[in-house]
């Protein structure tokens, strides 16, 4: 197998755990700039996912979508956010209404819930469970951020994370991810 094939295989089978890590870090982060960085990392992972799907399925439009995701969500929007943070001259603190420990346990509960929710669905339709669960987890995290952070910037970021989740769910169910349900979490 060529190096590119191996790489795309790896990306496709293990990207959801990195998305879960970004979810956990997002709910814990204390500074707005950290959250913006995490959001752009998340979008980069999703863009890589789109590229990998395009390579596997040989779909030209996937490359276009991936490039758009990269330009807009990884470069443009975070830059705009950083500019906003500078201009608004507000404090850099996230102003969370839950302590980091509570937030991270809520995040764990949300991840478990997303797995429980997609379990039955994922078996009926041939969709990799992990990707769909990551999508639902992103949606829940976005909603949680909007609810528990008192800064308007964080609420906007929460909405964007939620939108990331919806995009990932759409990607998973429509472009049709290659059937890699067996490879992930290899024993």
């Amino acid at each position, binding site marked *: 197998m060529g190096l590119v094939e191996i790489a795309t295989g*790896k990306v496709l089978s293990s990207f959801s755990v990195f998305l879960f*890590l970004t979810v956990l870090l997002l709910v*814990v982060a204390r500074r707005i700039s950290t959250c913006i960085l995490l959001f752009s990392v998340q979008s980069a992972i999703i863009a890589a996912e789109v590229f990998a799907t395009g390579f596997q399925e040989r779909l030209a439009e996937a490359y276009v979508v991936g490039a758009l995701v990269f330009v807009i969500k990884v470069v443009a929007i975070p830059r705009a956010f950083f500019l906003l943070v500078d201009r608004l001259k507000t404090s850099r603190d996230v102003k969370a209404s839950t302590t980091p420990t509570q937030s*991270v346990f809520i*995040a764990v509960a949300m*991840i478990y819930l997303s797995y429980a929710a997609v379990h039955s669905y994922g078996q009926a339709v041939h969709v990799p469970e992990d990707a769909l669960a990551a999508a639902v987890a992103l949606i829940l995290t976005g909603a949680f951020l909007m609810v528990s952070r008192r800064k308007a910037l964080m609420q906007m970021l929460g909405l964007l994370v939620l939108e990331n989740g919806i995009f990932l769910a759409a990607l998973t169910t429509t472009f049709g991810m290659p059937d890699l349900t067996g490879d992930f*979490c290899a024993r």
Partner: protein
Amino acid sequence: MKIAINLLQALILILGAPLLRGIIGRIKAWIQRRQGASIWSPYADLVKLFRKEDLVPPSASWVFRFAPRVLFGTAVCVAAFVPVVQPSALLASRGDFFLLAYLLALGRFFLSLGGMDGGSALGGMGASREALISSLAEAPFLLGLVAVAILAGHADIAGMVAWTLRQNIFNISAVHILAFTSLAMVVIAETGRMPVDNPTTHLELTMIHEAMVLEYSGPSLALVESASAIKFHTMVALLIALFAPWGMATSVSVWSIAAALLLYFLKAAVLMGLLAVVESGVAKLRMYLVPDFLGVASAVSALAVIFTMLAKR
């Protein structure tokens, strides 16, 4: 022959421990654009300390002098648990990670008592802070190892390492990534590295681990220092053995052992480099933010355990 190699492993862990300290110090110095001390300087420090007198406060009891010995004894025993060059160690085939964790707790218990025996305010302060951190760090440590053990189907360390060795290096498992994250955070907290504790601080009020040993001098201090170094080396070796053991010798031949040893040093050096970068890059956490740090580690390790069940579905 296998026993001789196991003995060699334990000796490497024990005798090579100060070298690891020296390497981290040198890399940090290089990052900070300083010359830095030689990587062999911790050995020189230990030799110097062994030649000095042992100063004891007049109000201290036998626990004060006994504590460094217990700490050293448990550190040496823990070093016998961890495989380095081959997937077995002196006590690893029957000893599991619960025994390892609680042996470390035994050493810590006596060290805290020794700190309180000095009769100074700072000893009590160090013991109190160490008590907070170690009580919260036990859970993620054990949970992370439990997650790996459930996947491996073994609870003894040799079994876990042998199982990981059989896996394909490119099949990253979510459980392992999460367990590694939480274990790395716990190792940082337990061995007193940044961002939990600054090992090179001179300000007593910012110390956690060092404050407990302020009253020790001479051979007792040498025992404490070497025990901390052995504990650090053992934890690093445990992380490498559980998460990146490929390269370990599966046959008993001089070449494979030598190659495994070289590979181990390379992995350790990479890990030291990463640690040095993290230590130079982040600021020390305020003490009351450390429970949040450990709470994140607990949640990540709990997630790792949950994922073991999800993986089997």
